[in-house]
Each structure stands twice: as structure tokens, then as C-alpha cells.
């Protein structure tokens, strides 16, 4: 395997900025890797070879001209989840509905990446409109987990996590509504961060659930995630829910954490996230991780957050409700798929219904109908209204917990990667994947997943979730970076290097 594709983003950036390797060489190495393995992994829906090389050439030219790098990550390749708009490059959201749609504008995240000189390799596969936990809901076929190609890479951002684990890209962007960054990170042995809601602009992020969606960085190391976090984050007047305050100092916190000292840090273990339904190897890995944190000097406290057990229910009302409204715009009138448009006997209303029936997959339809039901007059109070009250209680539980501790920890997801096809006919079983990740979406605080090792029974990656208060993202970066160093030392090298070579 080429060293360039196994390097971290920080290492690549250092080499590119020092002139030891060109951005074009780095980009080409990754494009070659994609060409080599993506038929088996299927992380990408679209590879923008020309756009990527052009961006890389610009970085190289700027360096030759003596200019400072546009950012700490200038010249480093990245895989962008296909739910963020890219001007002139197809954006499908994993849906037939948007097949071939070319947006006339860039999302703010896309714009910031371009301005930072980050090289966008292409758009990654995902569950349709980010609804799912396995990437099986993509209209363009599932993505495969590089650890075991028969297994799911998580979802909805399975393309972004698989691209990292398959060494197709050192960096990727995901979006997390109920765990769509952290759960894929967990099951692929990569780092996934959901920043505080309101710190990464949602402008140009095709909305699933507006009050929960948040884009965030995905990488193979905590420091790489932090570097990417600082490129994409910050206030944006185009997003009215964007917080007009400086971004938490996450890179500094990641560097500080790498010193390996957590003395004085209080860490709470969430009592409710254990027990029945949790795979033994997941719990074992989690317990070992907590021991390691204690060994790093942290004070470990058990904390109870009783309303967290209602989070899944609240989420599966709030998210579908907002989605039923957000996805109403896909109606065959202005863009996207149109079915029945040639038949003059059909009205606009008929064409809308036929198009939506044909263009949306089963999971999307299911959620649109749940949301439509939950918002209907007569049901609103019992469903949507009650879910919003639970949301308040979950936030209160977090507030009470953060009075006692600096961060909270739990397993990221109750099981390791399951087999493709195993849960497709059982929506409720699928929904359990997001059990532990959802509370942070409902409360809007920061949360990440860092690999904690492999489960003994199946040899598949397990994730440790670390949660921090809103605007205190740096706390979890510090803890994650310290843990990462200790883990690699204990396990004899980076976990990600144990991923088997993809058999094509």
C-alpha cells in the first residue's frame, strides 16, 4: 500500500506545505486507490477527478508562487457526503429523486473547504436523504464495510466512513441527525464528530431534520478531525441557527490531549447505556476504555440520565415530522425527477404523487408518513408536542450531569457492524443503532466517537462515545486525543492499520 494513502491528513499537509510532495501527487494517489478498491467498497457516488486535480494544482501553484497555505489542510484530499450541495457537481442525497441534479450553488461547508484549499475527491454514498443506519437505503446500492465487505459501514454516512477505512481519503465530511457521523465512525474504526448544533453552517446541507442536523468532520485520527473541524466551522449569516461566537479551540485541545494526561478531568459514565441489547464485546471494549481513561488520571463517576431512555422515541417523532415538511419540496415541479409529465391527462397533483412514489425509497416514505401523522391535528399534542417536551427533559438531564462531570461517555452504538440485509425488514431493530447517539442531537450539544478496539467475538471495531456540553467541544477532543494515544500504545499501533486489505 502506498504510504501517501496511509498517512494522516496532518502528515500529508506538512509534506505538501514543505514541498516534499505535491498536492497533485497526493490527490492522484487517492484517485488511484478509489479506482482500485471502490468497485468493492462503493463509498463514492461521484468521483470528481478533474475538479480534484484542478484544486490540487492550484495549491501547488500557490506554494510555488511563495504564498502561505490557504489553511492547515490545503492540498489534502477529502470525501464529501452527497447531502451537501456542490456547484456544478451532482448532488443526489442517495435518492432517485435527485438523480443528475447539479446544484447552482455551494453549501457553506463546501465553500469553506474550497477556500481552505482542501481537495474534494467526490461525493460519498449515504442512506437516502440521510435516513438510515446502514447505507442500505441508498438508491444507488449499499456501501460495504472495509473491515468485512459483507457488513454495513454504518449510516447514514456509510460512504464517508468507508472511504476513510478503505484509505480512499484521509478526511471526509458527514452529517449527523441521530448518529449518522458517530455510528458509521464506530463500526468502521474511524473518528466521527458531531459538533455543537449551530457551529457548522447548515446552508446547503439538504435538510432531513432541521433542528437536529449538523455536519461534522470524519477522519482516522482525533487531530485530523480537529483540523477539519476548524476549517468547516464558524458563524454563517446564511444559517439563522448559526451561533455567532468563536469556534471552541478544538485543535489546541487535541494537541493538549495527546500529552496523555487527564488528571483533574471528571468523566461520567451514563448508567442507562448498558445492559440488555448491548453486545458483550462492545461492553467489554467500553469497560476497558473507561479503565484506560482512569489510568490517564481522569476521575470516573457514574451518572444517571433517566430520560435518555425516551430519546429514541422522541427522535423518531421529531425527525420524521420535520422531514415530512422538508421533503415536501421534492414535487417534480422545479428540479429533480418527474414521472408522468408526458401524459396530458395527468394533473400537477397526479404527477407530484406519482413522482414521489417512484422517487422515494421505502424508508423515506415510511418516515414521511410517520411525520405526517405526528403533526396532524388531533395527534400533534400526543406525538410531536410530547416529543418536544421529552427533548426538554433530556437537555435537563445533560445539564444536571454536566454539573457533576466535564464529559460523559458511553458506547457509540450497542453492536458492531451487522450483516448487509440483516435488519432491512425490521425498522425498529435498525432504529436501535442510534440509541446512544440521539440524546446529543436532541439537546444540541457536542459528541464524538473514537475507536476503542475490536470486539472479541467478531473482531470488528467498537466506538467510544464522548459527549460534551454545547460550545465545549474542545473538552471531548482533549479526552479523545489522550485516549487515542493510550489505546495505540496499549494495542501496539493505530487500530485502523489492522483493517484487512480490501479484496477486489
Amino acid at each position, binding site marked *: 500500500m502506498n504510504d501517501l494513502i496511509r498517512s494522516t491528513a496532518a502528515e500529508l499537509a506538512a509534506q505538501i506545505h514543505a514541498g516534499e510532495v505535491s498536492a497533485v501527487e497526493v490527490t492522484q494517489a487517492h484517485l488511484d486507490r478509489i479506482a482500485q478498491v471502490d468497485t468493492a467498497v462503493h463509498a463514492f457516488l461521484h468521483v470528481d477527478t478533474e475538479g480534484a486535480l484542478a484544486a490540487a494544482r492550484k495549491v501547488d501553484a500557490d506554494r510555488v508562487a511563495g504564498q502561505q497555505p490557504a489553511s492547515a489542510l490545503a492540498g489534502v484530499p477529502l470525501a464529501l457526503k452527497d447531502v451537501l*450541495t456542490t456547484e456544478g457537481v451532482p448532488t443526489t442525497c442517495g435518492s432517485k429523486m435527485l438523480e443528475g441534479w447539479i*446544484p447552482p450553488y455551494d453549501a457553506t461547508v463546501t465553500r469553506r473547504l474550497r477556500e481552505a484549499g482542501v481537495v474534494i475527491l467526490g461525493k460519498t454514498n449515504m442512506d437516502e436523504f440521510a435516513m438510515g443506519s446502514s447505507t442500505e437505503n441508498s438508491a444507488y446500492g449499499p456501501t460495504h464495510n472495509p473491515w468485512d465487505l459483507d457488513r454495513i459501514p454504518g449510516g447514514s454516512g456509510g460512504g464517508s466512513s468507508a472511504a476513510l477505512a478503505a484509505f480512499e481519503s484521509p478526511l471526509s465530511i458527514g452529517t449527523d441527525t441521530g448518529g449518522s457521523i458517530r455510528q458509521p465512525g464506530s463500526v468502521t474504526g474511524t473518528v466521527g464528530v458531531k459538533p455543537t448544533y449551530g457551529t457548522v453552517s447548515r446552508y446547503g446541507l439538504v435538510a432531513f431534520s432541521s433542528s437536529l442536523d449538523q455536519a461534522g468532520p470524519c477522519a482516522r485520527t482525533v487531530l485530523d478531525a480537529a483540523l477539519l473541524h476548524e476549517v468547516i466551522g464558524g458563524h454563517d449569516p446564511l444559517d*439563522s441557527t448559526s451561533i455567532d461566537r468563536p469556534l471552541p479551540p478544538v485543535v489546541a485541545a487535541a494537541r493538549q490531549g495527546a500529552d496523555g494526561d487527564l488528571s483533574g478531568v471528571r468523566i461520567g459514565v451514563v448508567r442507562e447505556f448498558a445492559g440488555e441489547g448491548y453486545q458483550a464485546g462492545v461492553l467489554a471494549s467500553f469497560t476497558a476504555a473507561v479503565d484506560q481513561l482512569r489510568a490517564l488520571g481522569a476521575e470516573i463517576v457514574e451518572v444517571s440520565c433517566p430520560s435518555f431512555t425516551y430519546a429514541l422515541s422522541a427522535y423518531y417523532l421529531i425527525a420524521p415530522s420535520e422531514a415530512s*415538511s422538508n421533503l415536501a*419540496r421534492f414535487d417534480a415541479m422545479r428540479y429533480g425527477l418527474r414521472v408522468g409529465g408526458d401524459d*396530458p391527462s395527468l394533473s*400537477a397533483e397526479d404527477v407530484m404523487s406519482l413522482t414521489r412514489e417512484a422517487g422515494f425509497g421505502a424508508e423515506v416514505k415510511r418516515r414521511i408518513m410517520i411525520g405526517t401523522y405526528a403533526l396532524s*391535528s388531533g395527534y400533534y399534542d400526543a406525538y410531536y408536542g410530547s416529543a418536544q417536551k421529552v427533548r426538554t427533559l433530556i437537555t435537563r438531564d445533560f445539564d444536571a450531569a454536566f454539573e457533576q462531570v466535564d464529559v460523559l461517555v458511553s458506547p457509540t452504538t450497542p453492536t458492531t457492524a451487522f450483516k448487509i440485509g440483516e435488519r432491512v425488514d425490521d425498522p425498529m431493530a435498525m432504529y436501535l443503532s442510534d440509541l446512544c447517539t440521539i440524546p446529543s442531537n436532541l439537546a444540541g450539544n457536542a459528541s464524538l466517537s473514537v475507536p476503542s478496539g475490536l470486539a472479541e467475538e467478531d473482531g470488528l471495531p467498537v466506538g467510544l462515545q464522548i459527549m460534551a456540553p454545547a460550545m465545549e467541544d474542545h473538552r471531548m477532543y482533549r479526552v479523545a486525543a489522550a485516549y487515542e494515544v493510550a489505546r495505540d500504545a496499549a494495542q501496539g499501533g493505530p487500530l485502523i492499520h489492522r483493517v484487512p486489505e480490501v479484496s477486489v
Partner: protein
Amino acid sequence: MTRVADLMDYAEVVERFDPVLGLEVHVELSTNTKMFCGCPTTFGAEPNTQVCPTCLGLPGALPAVNGKAVESAIRIGLALNCEIAAWCRFARKNYFYPDQPKNFQTSQYDEPIAFNGYLDVVLEDGEVFRVDIERAHMEEDTGKSLHVGGATGRIHGADYSLLDYNRAGVPLIEIVTKPLEGAGERAPEVAKAYVSALRDLLRALDVSDVRMDQGSLRCDANVSLKPKGQAEFGTRTETKNVNSLRSVERAVRFEMCRQGAVLAEGGRIVQETRHFDESSGSTSAGRTKETAEDYRYFPEPDLAPVAPSTEWVEELRATLPELPWERLKRIQGDWQLTDAELRDLVNAGAVDLIAATVDAGSSPAEARRWWVAYLTQQANTRGIELVELSITPVQVARVIELVNGGSLTNTMAKDVVDGVLAGEGSPDEVVEGRGLKVVSDDSALEAAVDEALAAQPDVAEKIRSGKVQAAGAIVGAVMKATKGQADAKKVRDLVIARCGG
């Protein structure tokens, strides 16, 4: 063709029923940009040239609230004597329709920015009718559709439609009245007067073009009847987009007569939207829906709540201009008018003209005399409104100034005004052009007086003997001889002086 509705005689309707009105007025704000994006709001641009990802509802685009529109909404609320919400949210009103890019309208639901107000409306005979305001809330306009093919060019029978989203997202304020009861036979008049008063108010606030013909002010009229003595309301109909003041009055009256006929036959009023036809003055049923629309409102997650501080509201209150009814009250005092006199001026559309003439330097009494007497007569002769006369208040003030300065007599002043109305230029140009100059040369006047006295020696004798009132005949002769260009008072003084008085 749809069957022409049976109508009950209006007198019978008001004898048997009490009408209940509910008026919903949509006002497009004249902000530079749309409600939730930075696109322009100008009327009449090329289709789909004032659009962006947000107002086209493109995937991923987000709204951002126009602060100026919120300010306008609060000012409208204050002018309507409303309470201003200390905290309120936008809400999504979900329904599919091709003119609506997101298939939901960003509006306000149970938390309007302004609520519980009133507007006192003065009817033509001076009676004041208080219209209670339920709420005023912020929302966005829809795009416009063009229906192609079919026989009529209307929506029914069209082959396909074409959509222009330039108007989509233009800020709207919807002002909703409480049910208006007790107007009785004056209900149509009250409806018209309310919309008219609201239009004047919005114009004074400078928040909207209030052009009913361009749709920047639109009215939906809800009408129901209840038999006299009955407490509960009858079923109402909603007549959409009534596009002129006159139509408001006609539409309400028509619905009263139509519903009266239905109820008298023992029929049932169908709750429906109806369409007003300008040419026939009648309303026709729209598509009836099998089930009530379920809009599935919920708080707009993409927008932060609006929480105007007391300080901000008071700051905005201080920016309210003199409101139309306050101005009238002040004018009545300043001009010393009785209620009846003021009402006549209002009904004649003369208040603004007189006020402008006063502003240009005339006294209220003189300005009023010109506008309500000679100029009203000229307008009537021409069959036009006072304001349509081709003379400006500044020009009227100049005429008055010339009279007061002694350069014109009242008779000559009318000549000057006639000249201005005939397009001969400004008052000074007409004076010049028509050679209208008061003869003030004393010797010329004395000569004319002597000549007149000589011509009527018997009259001259009477004056000399002390019958001063006989001087009138001599004055008349002098005025005739000077073609009215002399000052009559001065002539009279001269006559008496020449006769040794």
C-alpha cells in the same frame, strides 16, 4: 355555464338576518428584499430573474429573516392598537401547491407578532364603527402561475401552467379582524370603509405600495348570516382576492343576498371559498374540498424566535407618523371645523388638497373656500374628482397670494384659475398671458370715476346729498369700464371722495 344564483332582496336580507363579517387583508411590504432572502421585490420584472436558492426552495437552502420586515410588522401592529408579542415564532403551514416552492409556507400560527387591536372606521355619514383586530402576522407570498391553453385561459380547462417565482417570498403581513357584528344593513359599507381606512393607514406608515390593482393589498371577505335573535354564527363563505374597494362592498352585498336566498329556501350554506367576478359583481363557488385542510403547523426550526424588547417596541412606536385619524382630529381643531364640515371635506377628498394649500402659505379658510366652492364646481362640471383637476395646491396658494396682495380681484382670480385649468401655465404665466392686472393707477381711476359721475348726474347728486348707498351704481359703471381690473373698494372710496364725502 354555472347557474346564476338566486338572490334575496337586500332589504329583506337585513330585515331577517344579521350579517357577520370577517376580513383578511394581505399586505405586501415595500422592503428592498424578500422576507427570507436577499432577492429584490420589484413588481413586473422578467420571470424568474428575482430568485435565489432560498426563494426557489432548492434543496439545502435556508431562510434568514428580513429585520426591516419585522420592524414594519411591529409598526403596523402598533398603529392598529395591537399588543406586540414579547416572544413569538414562525411556523410552517404545510400544503402542496405548485406556486409554493417548498410546499410549505413560512408563516405564523398561534403566536402572531401583533394581536388584540382595533381600527376605528369613519363611515360616510360620520358614524364611527370600531373594527376589532384579531391579529397581524408575518408570512411570505407565493409565486405566480400562468395557465396556458384551454378555452378560457383560466385555471379550469388549461392544458398546462407556467410558473414564475419572482413574487415567491415577498414579505406579507396578514391582518385578520375578529368577527364583525352589528353592522346590519351597513355591513358592505363597513367592509369597504375598513379596507379603505387600512389602506390610508399603511400608506401613512410608508410600509407598502398598497396597490390593490397590483395585488400589494388583497382582501378576502368572510360573510355569514344568522337569523335575527339567534346567538350562534351561521356557516361562512370566504370570497377570495377582491381587488378594489368597490368590489369589497359589492362582494359582501352579493354574498348577503345569495346566502339569504339559500337560507330562505331552507338550504344550507356550504363552507367554501368563492371567487368574485368583477364584471358581473357576483361570486362563484371554488373547488369544494371533501375534508377540511390539515396544515400540520409546527414551529419553523430554521428560524430563531422573535422576541422584541420593550425598548425596541417603544423606539418603533416613536417612529409612527401622525396616523390618519389623529391628523383629522388635529386638522378639525386647527381649521375650526364642525364635525359636518370636516366630514364634507373628507367625503369630497379635499382634506389633503387644502392641507397642502395651507402648507404653501394660505389660510385654512381661504384654501377651503377655493377648494370646496369654485374648484369643486369645476370638478363637477368636468365629471372628475377634485384631485384630478390640473391645478396644484401650490398654484391655488399663489392665486390666493396674488389676491391678498391686491394684484388680482376675486373675479380676475377665477380667470387665472380657469387659465391654469386650461393648461395655460402657472398662475403668473396666466396673469401675464391674459393681461390680467388690477388698475391701480390713481389718475386713471379718477378719470374713470369722473367720467361715470358725469354720465349719471342724477346719481352723483344723490351721493353729494348724503345718500352714500347710491355709490354702487357708479362703482358698477367704473368696474365695467375697467373690465373688472379695478379694486372695487378703492373705486367706492374714490367716488365718495369726489362727491365731497
